[in-house]
């Protein structure tokens, strides 16, 4: 069906909305990456199979919605029963029948499936009352978990594409650019460049044609906000891109998606096909003269392709090597033509800005960092998952109020933000407001939104070494300071974790870091030493413990630790013996086991499998 005019669109939206509120009950089953990994697909098929047979009165099979990520991944698979918002956690296929019998048929709540607040152990019945959700403010993630990720009708029922209709019929391209400028929206991919200014430059560029690219190459390890949006609410990204294309005068757009996100490619392609069928993409959008189409370009698994100039080379079928920035990509980008490149989350914010006005958006957050930001809150925190908060929220509020504190009540050690380009912030920085400028001043950066919480069992030397190894592997090799400098930094970090380093090595690493920063062309090299520099700034003592005392306080660095069996706790269950890859553990069933230190390669497998906590690390 083609939508011929904005009025036609409004009628359709109303009809789909009426259909939605007509369902007496709806099942929102989370099919985000986390819940799928814990078995959500089986739950969906079981609900469908049982409900097909049962024919409940007042329940339509179409009211089973496979939604995008709800956010609280730790508690998955999640099932929400609307319109009441009853929130079930850790649902297994065996619970499906009970949910149908009790909740769908008799309106009874199953208390054992409800979420419990970590501190009070209070059972919470409704979605909206859970601290994790109640303290968030969702704009970019507004539809996640609320609509089917496969059906454009659900997006339209929420008023989807009305921002596009408003932009096409009541606004000029200049007005759109000025509205986005007023909103203060800054690029959510990490660099924080003002979106309105980028659009204005491209709009005014004389060379033709202009291109619009959406950067979905979310390469930072520990970040999955963009994945969740592309999979769970693909139309909000498309709508943002179409509005951008109209504003900057472009007829062709690309979405560059990571190779590691096959489901995002699939859902985006489905969304593009559906939007094209409805006449929201393609020729003469909504009956106007404006035409725009979008192609998906799949990445090849290279971190550096998240960098704008490398990404554009990759879209053109080439090796993704960045180029110097004195020629800006907004003027000479894809195929050397003017190109707007924005991140997924940035585009997802655009329809809201157009609908509600830039000023309203700018009221949220901080003066120089307006609006909200999505984060993936992961690591050693209780409520891991996807969150969105106004800019300026403190790290402490995010980690303790929303995240529920540290897993197993261990002490907080640091929070890593900004991925491999960012840094680690210690407890003394927890009351900093999270915005672009403050985090950079503290030695880390906002980045795309990965927020990894670590406790006292994580070694900062090991973490810095991990990021250096990551970057060394992902460096494209074009600039010598990055290619060779990161190699030497990693070698020296390994020396420290092996207990073979001296204090001059640490000074050498700091000097070398500054050379890598000065001498590299793109962000990968320019920010590559950040994880090392920030950890050495805030956790110098821990580096010195490795160097002077040959000791790893966190019990991680293999060369500096040993594993021993605590005789009083060992019940001789043989679990560690079968886990040991090097056959270093001996003992009979029921007798205390012993570790041969000569053979032990310190992998820690015994420690991980022991249920009686009978293996200690020193």
């Amino acid at each position, binding site marked *: 069906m083609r939508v011929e005019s904005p009025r036609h669109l409004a009628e359709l939206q109303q009809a789909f909305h009426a259909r939605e509120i007509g369902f007496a009950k709806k099942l929102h089953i989370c099919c985000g*990456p*986390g819940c799928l*990994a*814990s*078995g959500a697909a*089986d739950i969906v098929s079981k609900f469908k199979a049982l409900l097909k047979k049962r024919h409940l009165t007042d329940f339509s099979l179409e009211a089973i919605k496979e939604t995008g990520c709800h956010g609280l*991944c730790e508690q*998955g*698979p999640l099932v929400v029963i609307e319109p009441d918002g009853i929130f079930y956690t*850790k649902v*297994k296929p065996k619970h499906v029948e009970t949910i149908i019998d009790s909740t769908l048929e008799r309106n009874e709540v199953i208390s054992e499936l409800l979420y419990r607040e970590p501190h009070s152990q209070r059972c919470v019945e409704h979605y909206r009352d859970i601290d994790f959700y109640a303290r968030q403010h969702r704009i970019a993630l507004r539809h996640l978990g609320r609509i089917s990720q496969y059906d454009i009708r659900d997006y339209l029922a929420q008023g989807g594409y009305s921002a596009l209709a408003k932009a096409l019929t009541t606004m000029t391209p200049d007005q759109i650019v000025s509205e986005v400028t007023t909103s203060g929206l800054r690029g959510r991919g990490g660099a924080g460049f003002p979106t309105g200014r980028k659009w204005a430059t491209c709009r005014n560029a004389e060379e033709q044609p202009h291109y619009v690219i959406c950067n979905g190459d*979310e*390469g*930072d*390890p*520990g*970040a*999955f906000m963009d*994945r969740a949006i592309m999979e769970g609410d693909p139309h909000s990204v498309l709508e943002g891109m179409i509005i951008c294309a109209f504003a900057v005068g472009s007829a062709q757009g690309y979405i560059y998606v990571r*190779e*590691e*996100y*096959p489901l995002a490619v699939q859902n985006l392609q489905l969304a593009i096909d559906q939007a094209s069928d409805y006449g929201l993409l393609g020729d003469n959008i909504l009956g106007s003269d404006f035409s725009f189409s979008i192609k998906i*370009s*799949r*990445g*090849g*698994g*290279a*971190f550096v392709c998240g960098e704008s100039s490398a990404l554009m080379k990759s879209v*053109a*079928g*080439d*090796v*993704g090597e960045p180029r110097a920035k004195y020629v800006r990509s907004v003027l000479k980008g894809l195929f050397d033509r003017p190109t707007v490149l924005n991140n997924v989350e940035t585009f997802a914010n655009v329809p809201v800005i157009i609908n509600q006005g830039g000023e309203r958006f700018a009221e949220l957050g901080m003066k120089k960092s307006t609006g909200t930001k999505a984060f*993936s809150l*992961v*690591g*050693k925190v209780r409520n*891991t*998952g996807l969150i969105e908060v106004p800019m300026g929220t403190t790290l402490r509020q995010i980690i303790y109020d929303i995240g529920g504190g540290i897993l197993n009540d261990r002490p907080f050690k640091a929070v*890593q933000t900004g*991925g491999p380009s960012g840094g680690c912030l210690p407890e003394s920085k927890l009351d900093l407001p999270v915005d672009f400028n403050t985090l950079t001043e503290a030695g880390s950066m906002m980045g795309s939104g*990965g927020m*990894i919480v670590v406790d006292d069992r*994580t070694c900062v030397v090991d*973490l810095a070494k*991990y*990021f250096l190894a*990551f970057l060394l*592997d992902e460096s*494209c090799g074009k600039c010598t300071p990055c290619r060779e400098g990161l190699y030497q930094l990693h070698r020296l970090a390994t020396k420290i974790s092996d207990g073979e380093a001296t204090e001059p090595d640490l000074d050498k690493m700091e000097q070398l870091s500054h050379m890598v920063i000065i001498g590299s062309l793109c962000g990968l090299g320019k920010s590559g030493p950040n994880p090392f520099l920030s950890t050495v700034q805030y956790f110098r003592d821990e580096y010195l413990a490795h160097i002077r005392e040959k000791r790893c306080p966190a019990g991680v660095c293999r060369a500096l630790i040993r594993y021993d069996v605590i005789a009083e706790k060992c019940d001789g269950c043989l*679990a560690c013996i079968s*886990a040991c*890859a090097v056959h270093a553990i001996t003992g009979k069933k029921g007798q205390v086991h012993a570790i041969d230190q000569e053979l032990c390669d310190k*992998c*820690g*497998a015994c420690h*991980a*499998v022991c249920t009686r906590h009978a293996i200690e690390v020193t």
Partner: protein
Amino acid sequence: MNHDLSRLPDIIGRYPRSPQSLIAVLQDIQRDYHFLPCEALKETAKALQVPLSKVFSVSTFYNAFSLYPRGERVIRICTGTTCHIRGAKLIQYQLEDKLSIKAGQTTPDLKFTLEVVNCVGACAMAPVVIVNGKYFGSVKVSDSKKLLRGSKDAR
């Protein structure tokens, strides 16, 4: 090595014959053959009119491409930051030991390929292992045998 190249024209034909299609064509060959056979690179170079050296350059630059045959079952261990601090290395050591290969290698009988991948974006379920596209979350050291069978009960 000889491979059945009869499927190649079909794969190349899916895209416009221009250098811009190079990555997409190689991705489809990789998906179909599970690696990039040497002959396929030559054919691609000819069809898209790009130098063979460039085809080789692109196929070695991106992690998604492999120039060696891969196993029937591809086990990918996520080593993103979250998986790293939650013990992905332990899982890697266990699987390397059980298969007697290192990450990045394939068993001689072509049954298993073991790979590490930099974050698959399922961080909340760390550590994550993907076996032939199927995600397994919150993997424990003791799950390694089950992973080799390709099945691990959901939590």
